[in-house]
């Protein structure tokens, strides 16, 4: 009889632990999957992985996040185990005697313990956090810092290098920063219309671009390459295709890029028909081509359009076909963008595309 009831008891325990695991397992699978996805930070599975930092602010956040994950993970495991234990152990037995269990109303010592211990944990987390906040937010630009002004537009990015006399769009170029002699970039963040947010996960946390509320942030990318990101504050219809690319180059490449971007557009007689189309339609209301009558500022500066890999804020590769399609029917690439369909004839479209192809 005794053996019988013991078997029955262990069956009950098993059933209890199955239902407990059904709740808990997916959480473990989730974090296990996450750990696998982040296993090798040098070869990240995702180009926007926050756990593959390549710049000081992103690295400080990464270090802090590991500490926070360790602390919260440990709390999770301990409390999870206690919950699981009580769910399994204190199930009503099948051969229950029908009497109420001992009625326990509370215990001040126990309450004190589980108040004081969390308070201590909070204090530790807070101090680690305050340190990183000060480190990232209270840094002032050194003399050799690069200054960039980023202006958010619906739905593209304008970049101005005030000290270098360069204006470009969507693809930000920066020199690599040697950790021994850092050359950080300080970005002033402005908005021309609604709220936006500048977020390149591998380079740093996000900071919002808010009209009438200038913000600053800094990054010091420590390895060359292209870093991806996108607008992280809902800004209207095409928030999703307001993509960000940061090209981190060696100092020589960067200086060369700056020199090239400073040149005005050069006239080319072979495409004069396209240029005339450009300069006699609404294009110039919104776009600038330096050295010409086109000086609009509502849309991206096109002076060196062909030096960019993408058009429409990263929505499509910069190929002649895409460019032509973009002018003919922007909604085909980015429905809801503020670029109007220009209603040009095929001949005008060809000429205009040919002209834009010369803006190197």
């Amino acid at each position: 009889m005794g053996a019988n009831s013991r078997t029955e008891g262990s069956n009950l325990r098993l059933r209890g632990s199955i239902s407990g695991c059904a709740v808990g397992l997916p959480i473990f699978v989730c974090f296990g999957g996450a750990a696998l996805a982040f296993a090798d930070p040098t070869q990240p599975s995702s180009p926007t992985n926050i756990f593959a930092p390549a710049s000081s602010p992103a690295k400080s956040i990464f270090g802090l996040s590991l500490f926070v994950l360790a602390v919260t993970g440990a709390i999770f495991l301990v409390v999870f185990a206690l919950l699981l234990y009580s769910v399994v152990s204190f199930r009503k037995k099948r051969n229950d005697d029908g009497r109420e269990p001992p009625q326990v109303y509370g215990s001040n010592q126990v309450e004190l313990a589980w108040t004081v211990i969390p308070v201590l944990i909070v204090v530790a987390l807070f101090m680690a956090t305050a340190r990183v906040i000060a480190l990232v937010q209270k840094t002032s630009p050194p003399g050799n810092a690069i200054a960039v002004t980023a202006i958010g537009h619906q739905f593209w990015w304008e970049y101005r290098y005030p000290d270098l006399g360069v204006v470009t769009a969507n693809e930000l170029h920066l020199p690599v920063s040697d950790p021994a002699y850092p050359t950080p970039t300080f970005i002033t963040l402005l908005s021309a219309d609604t709220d936006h947010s500048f977020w390149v996960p591998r380079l740093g946390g996000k900071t919002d671009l808010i009209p009438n509320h200038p913000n600053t942030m800094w990054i010091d990318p420590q390895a060359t390459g292209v870093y991806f990101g996108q607008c992280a504050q809902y800004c209207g219809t095409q928030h999703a295709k307001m993509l960000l690319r940061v090209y981190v180059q060696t100092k020589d490449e960067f200086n060369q890029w700056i020199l090239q971007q400073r040149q005005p557009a050069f006239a080319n007689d072979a495409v004069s028909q396209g240029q005339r189309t450009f300069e006699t339609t609404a294009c110039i209301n919104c776009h600038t081509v330096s050295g010409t009558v086109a000086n609009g500022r509502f849309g991206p500066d096109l002076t060196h359009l062909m030096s960019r890999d993408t058009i429409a804020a990263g929505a499509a590769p910069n190929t002649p076909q895409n460019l032509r399609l973009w002018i003919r029917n922007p909604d085909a690439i980015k429905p809801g963008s503020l670029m109007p369909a220009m209603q040009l004839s095929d001949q005008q479209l060809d000429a205009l595309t040919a002209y834009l192809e010369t803006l190197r």
Partner: protein
Amino acid sequence: MSTDALALPGTELASRPLVSKLHDWVATVDHKKLGILYIIYALVFLLIAGVEAMIIRIQLIRPHNDFISPQVFNRMFTMHGTTMIFFVVMPVLFGFANYLIPLMIGARDMAFPRLNAFSFWMTAFGGLLLYFSLVGANGLYGAGNAPDVGWFAYAPLTSQTFSIGHSTDFWILALLVSGFGSIGTAINIVATILCMRCPGMTLAKMPLFAWLNLIMAGLVILAVSPLTAAQIMLLIDRYLGGHFFDTQAGGSAVIWMHFFWIFGHPEVYVLVLPAFAFVSEVIPVFSRKPIFGYSVMVAATVAIGFISMSVWAHHMFTVGMGANVNTFFVISTMAIAVPTGIKIFNWLATMWGGKIEFKTPMLFCTAFLFQFLAAGLTGVMLSVAPFTWQLGNSYFVVAHFHYVIVGGILFALFGAFYYWFPKMSGKMYSETLGKLHFWVFIVGFHLTFDFMHIPGLLGMPRRIYTYEPGRGWDTWNFIVTIGVFFQAVGILVFLGNLIWSYLRGKAAGSDPWDAWTLEWSTNSPPPAYNFASRPVVKSRRPLWDLKHPADPDWNYE
């Protein structure tokens, strides 16, 4: 032993024509009928907002999907968020509070029955107004569109410049009108709990349910008022030439954020405190023990109420508030984890040493404990401002708050539905369908919301209608979308169970759980006057005292 002593036998009216019955529901000031109206109204909107969620997830099942246009997608997430918060979770919680508080404190109705009816109909018309935008937003020609500004409607996207037509106006008016309803109900709950308790029920002898709803109602008064004020300012901006949030004329977008989140964060506690209230009633009854540390639970609730008013700007860590302000909101936000943790430990201690019976309500409340633990801990991660610089507005945040609202609040709510359904309908629900609902829904929940954290860590922002391939987000989004279908099936099983049990269920009797609070001492469903004679209580568990006259609770409290 019989506990029906406090109710009169059958006083149901003879059958009357349907119109007359419906008129009773429209004109009613009875807290129980209003409570049920709130609940049914919320269930209807739950279905609508659930379909919106499914549309969002189908669009995101793979990169560059073209199931819906960006414009429709933006309307879907705006309507999903607004509907779920204002027209599903708040009304359903008000419904339970309305129904249960007078019964639990031994009163015959709420303090202000007519205000109660007024508040419900204001909330109801608010929801209708929001959805009327589909018809009327561009003039009364049926050429309308839902609002597309997001549920927190950041300025200046809501200004006339960026939001033409009237869809945003419908959003503003819907929240304004339902806000008056919420404030009315909150005043009513506070007045009822403070003034209508039966003899012997001091504040320290109230069920925890009443305490948690008292604090919730106080928070509603404090939090919904600034939101209402902000909506009026936004209307002034849009139609009377004001410039509060009009950045093009020197207004401040950041002020809107402060107004919205000083509502928006306490709102989280407005939603979660009633969930705590359900759990605090269900766990003791199914563990057969009194709640562990009653006074500490009350103190923790009051602490949460106070601290929750000082944490709002943790939603704004990325707007450039400066290091000192950020640091303040880090510590205030982390501080709220302490009383919340105390609650989890007390529920755990209530189960400890008990004889737990896993009926459907207890299953949901147990899952609540596990899931709310995880949701709370991702909340602690997000209180770390630098972590939020990375994860703010990413899918990690979306996963976190759905873990709170679905994994926490909705699970507790399902528990509450099964626990009090026998009281409200007089019928017992189907335990088989209840367990089926639990298992299908929990699988769907974990598929969706566990895996949703990962694209956030991999840099996926929220509110994007499509995404680029090659970012490592595809697989996770696929799994997340599959989970939604399990949840949808779970919801259908749940609704089917309610309807089937209401029509065909066995009679439940007045006290099917052998429970201890006053609502179980009267008939199921309770008569219009609740109690034939006013109950008198001497402890927190009046029915325990009645059932154990030799060993009553008041000897120990």
